[in-house]
């Protein structure tokens, strides 16, 4: 295990982050659709997992994404008050408030784990978000070399 850590990591310039996004069907997924119909260009590093609501997202999903080698995770849903299911995003918010602090203690900080509200009307915000997250993770470097939550190859 010690040896794999010190094995040659790819040069920073060649590092293409893998970002897993968990988004709700009604707001952020639709916002990403709008970014598409508006032909907004953004970085191609993010892969979206669609769920009905941010309320469905279990912290285990986030850990599994990291374990599988994601360099960052984004969770995005409806703005407060906009939840299709009235309060799923409020439940999610409380969960993430706690969970992110727990992960921060274990070394997964704000440059790995991102949260946002993106409405169905915010195509531009979605595109900007993906670009911004990608840039930050590019700077943070690969997750897989440094954290106990990764799966050793």
């Amino acid at each position, binding site marked *: 295990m010690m040896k794999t850590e010190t094995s040659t990591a790819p040069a920073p310039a060649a590092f293409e982050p893998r970002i897993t996004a968990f988004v709700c069907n009604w707001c952020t997924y639709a916002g990403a659709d709008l970014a598409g119909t508006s032909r907004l260009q953004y970085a191609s590093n993010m892969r979206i997992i669609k769920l009905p609501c941010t309320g469905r997202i279990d912290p285990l999903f986030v850990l599994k994404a990291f374990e599988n080698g994601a360099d960052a995770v984004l969770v995005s849903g409806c703005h407060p008050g906009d939840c299709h299911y009235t309060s799923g995003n*409020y*439940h999610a918010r409380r969960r993430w408030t706690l969970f992110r602090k727990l992960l*921060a203690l274990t070394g997964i900080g704000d440059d790995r784990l991102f949260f946002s509200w993106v409405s169905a009307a915010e195509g531009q915000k979605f595109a900007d978000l993906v670009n911004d997250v990608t840039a930050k993770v590019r700077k943070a470097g690969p997750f897989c070399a440094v954290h106990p939550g990764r799966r050793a190859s």
Partner: protein
Amino acid sequence: MKALREAAEKLLREKRVSLVIGYEDRKGRPAFFAAKPEDCGRLAYDASCRQNLAAYLGKPEIRARLPVAVVAPPAVLRSIVVLTAESQLPPGQVLALAVDGDSFLGTFDAAGVAELLRAKYSTLAPEPALLERVQGLLQKSPAERAAFWEAEFSKCTRCYACRAACPGCYCSRCIVEKNAPQWISTAALGHGNYTWSVMRAFHQSGRCTLCGACEAACPQGLPLMLLNAVLDREALEEFGSRPGYDPEAKPLIGSWSADDDHSYMR
């Protein structure tokens, strides 16, 4: 000690309970089960008692013998309130023999436990040393924190002593024991150990009474209380959560307020 033994003996003699769960008067203060009045002379309590005896309330063999009484210092009293709020204790079936330091405080039912806690222990706070350890770790860089946990979690053998020790871990089938899908790897390797410990702690959010039994039970000495403490502090600061005081409390994870903070959301 005498008062505790007498109170326990009285409960058994009057057949108000069929079992008193306490600590035994021998080295290490292990769990002791008094089923007969004459057993009660072997009960003891002092600050060295590390087990949270409320963990036994989820054990089927104990539940088959309800009503029971439990020797309970403040953290255990809070566990009883948490279990009551989560509909885990049949009403009127669990009595607490409340103890604190050298004193015996009396015999209480679930409502009485909540009252006692509010009256006498409303300001229970985590040990400052524990919070200092959390703060010390948070002051390190993320990479240093990761390295710290890498070293710690590599020791974990997945014996689940932490789970067995915790009254909050009463699920009949733990998530780690579910294999369709197997979210948490059961292999005692880095990633499974990490996910296990992180999720074990997270599942105690808003429920943990910081009794310390999990950390005390860990044969490898993992600093599990750091995880519990950071969540406890956050839950208190963000949501005013104080688990184990209100037997009708809604679960922290499972309720919400429109005013909850989301400054970290973009």
